[in-house]
Structure formats: structure tokens, C-alpha cells
């Protein structure tokens, strides 16, 4: 009896995390690995044949939309990630200095993030950026000519880049936490040396924050490379594929064309791209992050 209950006790922990484990195995691990297998087939939900590397060969040699959507996604990421982090940092710096209503301000700036990649938000975007929408109405006040934000292929991508920019709650809170850990003594000695504000920021704040910057950079890059909702709801990838984000192409391949095998291969390529980005960021970080130890 005793040994049995002791043996059971060993599984107590497992029992507690089992809901997560089951979810993870069934909904994450299984699809993740089965996608590798599918990526070597021409699975279309109805029939399945092994095609070797043919899917991957086509992706890299003969798929115009792959090139197009990858380039759209990279451009999107290169603008959205630094943009989002810059704004998050500026807000964190400001919040760090506010003495009153800090809780209120923090909540207000965190709020958009709770809305998540929500559909409602993207629909709101569509209305804001219509030719007769709020943005153009505001511009008209300053006698600026109306812009076709979502219909012009040269502009549409930049209009939807703005969508994730204001959902910066998570990086902002991390920056804020990072700012709080910077020892006050550093600032005091800088003040005694007569350092100017910009100097203090560049030589103290930024280096001390660099590990947090790295973390935010990696996390946000991972999120934004996989972004789907803004393009799907706001522009449906158009006009003329100007906002055809990678995950949207993935969705079309899988659920419009039902080329599940090919879509699996595409998703593994995306995974590799994300891995590559993460790797490069980590490798480069040794030259620009600062740890006190």
C-alpha cells in the first residue's frame, strides 16, 4: 500500500500538468511532426502519394507567389518589429517617469494588446482606412489630400503595418521592468559627471536594457513573421498580392487549394526562416548586449 501510494505520488506532478501535456501533444507536437511527413506527399485531403522532395524543389525553384509573399513578409517584419519596439521603449521611458496615475496609464497602453490579433480590430482598421474613413477625414482637416490606404498596392502594406504597432503591451511591460532594475547609482554618478540626457540614454539606459531588447526582438520577430489576421481581414492579401503575408499564402494553399502536402512544406520553410532569424539575432547579440555578470 505504502509503496503504491509513494509510486503514485511520483506521478502527482505529471497529473497536475497533464491537461497542458495532453493539449501540447495532441494540438502542437502531433501536427508539428506530422507536417514533416505530409510535406513529402501530395496530400489533398482525399488522396495521398509520396512525392519525395518535389514540394520543396518547387517552392525554391518555381513558385512566384512564394517569393512574393516571403518578400512582403520580410518587409513587413523589418518595419513592424523595430517600429513596435521603439514605440514600446518610448512609452516605457515615459511611464517610468510618471509619478501620478501610473497604474492608469499602464493599463491604458496595455489595453490594445488584450484585444490580441482580433478580427474586430482588423475590421475597425478597414473602416478607419477607407477612402471616406476617419484617417482621411482627419487629414482633410489639415487640407491633406485623401489617400487610398488599402487599395493602392504601393501603400497597402504600410497601412497594415500600423496594425500590430499599437499592440505593444508585452514588450512595453518588459522594458518597464528592465528600466526599474537599472541601479539608480549609475544615473547619479552620470549626473555628477555632468552627462547630458542623450548621453545618459545611449551609454547607460540602452546598454543596461540590451538583454531585454534582445528578448523582445526575438519574441516579436517570431510573432510578426507569422502574422495572419491583419492581411486576411483587412485586405485579403490584396491588392495584387501587395499584402500577401506568408501565413495567408499558407492558408490559401491549404484551405482554398487543399494542397495540404505543399502547405506542410511551406510551413516548414517558414519555421526554418523563423529559426534562422532567431539564430542570427542570438549570434549577433554577443556584440551588442551587455550583461553585468
Amino acid at each position: 500500500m505504502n509503496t503504491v501510494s509513494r509510486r503514485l505520488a511520483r506521478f502527482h506532478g505529471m497529473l497536475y500538468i497533464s491537461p497542458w501535456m495532453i493539449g501540447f501533444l495532441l494540438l502542437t507536437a502531433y501536427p508539428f511532426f506530422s507536417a514533416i511527413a505530409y510535406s513529402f506527399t501530395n496530400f489533398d485531403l482525399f488522396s495521398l502519394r509520396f512525392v519525395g522532395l518535389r514540394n520543396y524543389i518547387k517552392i525554391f525553384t518555381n513558385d512566384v507567389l512564394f517569393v512574393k509573399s516571403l518578400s512582403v513578409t520580410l518587409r513587413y517584419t523589418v518595419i513592424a518589429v523595430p517600429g513596435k519596439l521603439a514605440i514600446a521603449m518610448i512609452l516605457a521611458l515615459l511611464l517610468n517617469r510618471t509619478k501620478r496615475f501610473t497604474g492608469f496609464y499602464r493599463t491604458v497602453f496595455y489595453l490594445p494588446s488584450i484585444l490580441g490579433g482580433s478580427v474586430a480590430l482588423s475590421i475597425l482598421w478597414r473602416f478607419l482606412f477607407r477612402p471616406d474613413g476617419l484617417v482621411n477625414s482627419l487629414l482633410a482637416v489639415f487640407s491633406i489630400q485623401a489617400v487610398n490606404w488599402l487599395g493602392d498596392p504601393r501603400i497597402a502594406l504600410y497601412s497594415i503595418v500600423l496594425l500590430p504597432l499599437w499592440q505593444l503591451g508585452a514588450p512595453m511591460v518588459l522594458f518597464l521592468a528592465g528600466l526599474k532594475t537599472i541601479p539608480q547609482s549609475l544615473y547619479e554618478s552620470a549626473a555628477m559627471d555632468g552627462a547630458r540626457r542623450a548621453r545618459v540614454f545611449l551609454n547607460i539606459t540602452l546598454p543596461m536594457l540590451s538583454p531585454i531588447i534582445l528578448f523582445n526582438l526575438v519574441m516579436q520577430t517570431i510573432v510578426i513573421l507569422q502574422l495572419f489576421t491583419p492581411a486576411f481581414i483587412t485586405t485579403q492579401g490584396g491588392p495584387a498580392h501587395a499584402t500577401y503575408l506568408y501565413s495567408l499564402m499558407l492558408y490559401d494553399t491549404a484551405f482554398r487549394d487543399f494542397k495540404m502536402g505543399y502547405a506542410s512544406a511551406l510551413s516548414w520553410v517558414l519555421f526554418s526562416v523563423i529559426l534562422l532569424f532567431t539564430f542570427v539575432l542570438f549570434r549577433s547579440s554577443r556584440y551588442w548586449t551587455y550583461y553585468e555578470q
Partner: protein
Amino acid sequence: LRVSWWGGDSRHQATLDAIEIFESKYPNISIEAEYSGFDGYYQKLVTQLVAKTAPDVFQSDQGWTVEFFNRGDVFLPLEQYASVIDLSTFEDQLLNSYCRMGGHTVVVPLGFNGTVLLYNKDLLAKYGVSGSTEWTWEDMIALGRRIHADNPDAYLFTDITDGYIRFVLKPYLEQVTNRIAVTDDYSVGFSQREMAGVFSFIKELFDSGTAEPYERSVLYKVSVIDNPAWIAGNIGSTLIFLSTIARDTAGLPFEVGVGRLPIRGGAPTTGQESGPSLMFAGYANTAHPKEAAQFINFFVNDPDSILALGTVRSVPANQPALDILNNAGKVDALMASGASISAASMGFPNGALEMNPSVHSIFVQAMEQVIYGQLTPDKAAANLIADLQERLAEMKP
């Protein structure tokens, strides 16, 4: 019994009303309605068919019938339930052309659909056009130039992206080639030169100021009723399906009329997309086949259902139902005249592959590249053919 369909608000409400009547007449059957817009409906349905969880009765498109039938195990053979479903109210020829596969009736048409030109009477009257709008495409461009030159904010025409494909590109092409764009043997039904001609025409529609700039109309994907320029009365006309006429004219501050779609001089066919487009099908793996058939029968044959539904799926495809509506004065003048105009200028039935979303997207891509000036009509036509051939080869069973 699960029943699914797509549509706009007016169709949803009318269908829900009909279902309520059904439930009160057949208290032993309860209906679970699953309805949505058209976006994603096909994707969801196919996924459900694969997972064998499709609704017992589902709305299907005429263009999907062959595709689903070839996949097998999709459709309930309705004759087997002749005790509860009466198909004799439909003409035999209609059933043969659109509804029978492998010797069975697999789908039941819910309405007879067609393409009509919907025009703003007030605006056109200003330019001396009243009554007849039997245009050729060339007439259209001439008038379009005149309107736009007179008022830079006004255009003769606009449409949603899908409309440009189905009501401009396809009819124009068929009026040239006299056959459908993608034939049922998985091949392309036009030459590069023919398609380049169509693209040049579409380009001219925009270049001449006849059509509202595409970068504006592209924003309103579902219906022209979302387009502020149309609502404001700055657009002379659009091409639509008869079945969406209620939605596309709801609350307009100007008078509208319907006319025939434009036809090239000397064209051998109108290329008009017409015929019974929306269908109900019973699902092959349903646990309640008899009840499913009973519901479909009620939907198309029961006078109370017919009156509740009105013309939310266009005019009924069976004469008795149409008579019931006419007698009750439930077919409005616009719908009635649209139906007769469309019936007088019918084109080919849709091919089995033309409505495939993946094929459709290839057309959209090529057309947009021409409109946005990214490719010449000739190059876009060449790409279109190559892309279609590749995709069709993949789809071929």
C-alpha cells in the same frame, strides 16, 4: 437535422422563418441552422465532408456539383426517398442539365439565377439614357467616357472583384470564343490572343474612365452596396446576380432599373452566367436521410415555405412555386423584369471547374496584374494559361 447555407441578412432571416414553419409542421424534427456569409463556406464544407461531419442538408453551388460528386460519398440520392420528396414540380430538362449525376438526382435547385445590369436611373437619365440599356461593350465605353468627362467624380460602371471576373471577363471571353473558359476535361478554353484581347478591353474600361478606379472598388469585396460612390449615386451601373438584387439595392436614395448585360456586336453567345445556381443537397452520410429529404421537399414545394422565402435565392426554379409567389404579389417588379431579361439571354451553364476557388483566384491574379499595370495584357494572358494548366493538372483525378 443540421442545415447549412450562406447568404446575406435578408436570406438568413427568410430561411430561419421557413425553418420555424417547418418545425411547427413537423414537431418531431428539430433543425439546427448553420448559416454564414459566402467567405469560407466552401472551405468549411469541404473540411466537413472530409471529416464526415457535414450538415444533413447543405446549400451547394451549381459549380461544385461535379467536383463533389467525383469525390464520392457526398450526395444523398434523393429519388430513393420519393415518398417524402416530390421532384416532379421541376422540369425534367432542368434536373437533367443541372441536378442529376450518375443516374440520381443529387441536388435540388433553390432558385433560378442570372446576371443583370443594375443601373442608376437618375444618373443615366441625365445623360439621355432611359429605358433600354441593351449595350454593346463599345457603347458602354463611349457612354462611360462621356459621363466621366462631364463629371470627374462620376463613372458609368463599377463592380466587386468577383463581379469583374464573372460578369465582365467571362462573358466577354465567351462572347469571343463561344465556349466556357475552363472546360470539364480539365483544359483551358481560350487562346493567349483571345485572353489578351479581353484584358485589353478591361484595361480600357478603366483607362477610359468608364469604370470606377479598381483601387477604390477593390475595397468592397462582398457587395456594391458597401461602396460609398454607388450609394452616393455617382456610379451609373453595375453587374450583379439576380439573387442579390435585394441586398444590392437596399436603401438606395435613387431609382434603379435592370437591363441585359452588355454583348459584343455579332457575338455567338451572351456568356451570361445563368441557371439554377443555388442548390440544396442531402448529405450521403446523414443519420436521417428521410427527414433530410422531407426538409428539402418542404423548402421547395410547401406553399408556406415558398411564401416565407420569397426571392431571397432569386426566383424559384420550379413553376408551381413561382406561380404561388406571383399570385401573392411577392415577386417585386425589379426581380420579375430581371428574371425575364436574364431568361431571354441565357448563356452556357457554368463548367464544373470554373467555380473552383483555386481556379478563380488564378483569374483574379492575372486580371489584377493587368489593371494595376504590372503586366501587359499579352504577358498576363500567357501567365494565366500557364498557371491554369498547372493547377488543372494537379486537380485532375
